[in-house]
């Protein structure tokens, strides 16, 4: 196992959540590799630092009558439901909800789209069809179309960057599609920036 793979497992090593075989492997590597040793020390120190954080007393929970607060919210909710939502309104809302769900399923089937939100912006991620590899088609965009990545089979470099950004092993554990949805706006922006650098290099050449 190379340093790159070892580094991805150091958090698990610290937390003692690796199999005995993997643990032995990492231990043996750490004894001979000063670079990974340093990295492990940093992780260990970060965890130790985090443990020094002062605990907080939840005094508010005891100063106020918390249960009464919950109870009054429950009662208030009951009253509001009766006042604001008479039965015909609930029925109307239910029918609208059903219509939206059916429409959503219909659209989803046509485009095989997964729409997810990252911060303020909505991204559309097109799932490749079964005979297409994910390398062939990864595409996201903001509502203004400003975040769009399109991969083709010839753009292996972009895929490599994507994988590196997604921390290969770890994100692959989650599955690429899942990993992609886990990214937040900042991470997507960084990803886009790195991908654009490649495009820029290509144009110069």
């Amino acid at each position, binding site marked *: 196992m190379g340093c790159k793979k070892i580094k991805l497992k150091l958090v698990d090593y610290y937390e003692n959540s690796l199999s005995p075989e993997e643990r032995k492997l990492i231990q043996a590597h750490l004894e001979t590799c000063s670079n990974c040793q340093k990295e492990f020390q940093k992780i260990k120190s*970060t965890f130790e630092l985090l443990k020094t954080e002062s605990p907080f007393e939840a005094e508010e929970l005891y100063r106020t009558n*918390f249960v009464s*607060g919950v109870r009054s919210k429950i009662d208030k909710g009951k009253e509001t439901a009766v006042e604001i939502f008479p039965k015909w309104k609930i029925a109307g809302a239910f029918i609208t909800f059903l219509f939206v769900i059916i429409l959503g399923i219909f659209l989803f089937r046509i485009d095989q789209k997964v729409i997810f939100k990252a911060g303020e912006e909505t991204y559309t991620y097109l799932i490749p069809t079964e005979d297409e590899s994910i390398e062939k088609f990864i595409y996201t965009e903001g509502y203004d179309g400003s975040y769009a990545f399109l991969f083709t089979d010839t753009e292996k470099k972009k895929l490599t960057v994507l994988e590196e950004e997604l921390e290969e092993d770890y994100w692959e554990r989650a599955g690429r599609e899942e990993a992609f949805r886990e990214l937040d706006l900042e991470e997507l922006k960084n990803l886009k920036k790195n991908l654009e650098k490649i495009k820029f290099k290509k144009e110069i050449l």
Partner: protein
Amino acid sequence: MNEEKTQELIQRFKQGEEKAFNELVNLYKKKIFNLVLRMVRNKEDAMDLTQEVFVKVYHSLKDFRGQSSFSTWLHRIAVNLCLNFTQRDKFRSFISLPDLVQPVISSSSPLKDFEKKELDKAIDRAVSNLPKKQRAVFVLRHYQELPHSEIAKVMDKSEGTIKANYFQAIKKLKKSLAHFVE
């Protein structure tokens, strides 16, 4: 948490004993308040949201079939409410948690107290800057001390996704706190 006691209270509530719900709230309020506070970083919001969690529990408890443990189910409600809340109010003005809630610092030296408070602030800032899903995973693992498998159930994700988010969170915290570590 005492699982037997919890089950007993749930049964009593399902049989119509309202008082059992109050006991259930008292049993879990501190744990849930701490979780919510670490997620939203605002005392008033945390208090309000923690109450919301229990209101939701009250309305859904009769349908709770016990496919997951009560604690998992409760954590799921709390995390989902926090994630929706942080999405809505994500860019609130930043006030560090140590400024809002009095931390328990026991030291005789004012200088050490000051340094400790600064460190607490730095940790709070670093945790607050994590993307919300990574923050949720970190809070559940570090403060609530849940295993990855349990967090996966709470967040309805695979264990791999949870480990990935946790790894990313630690990586970012290591970077943000590098100044204190080196």
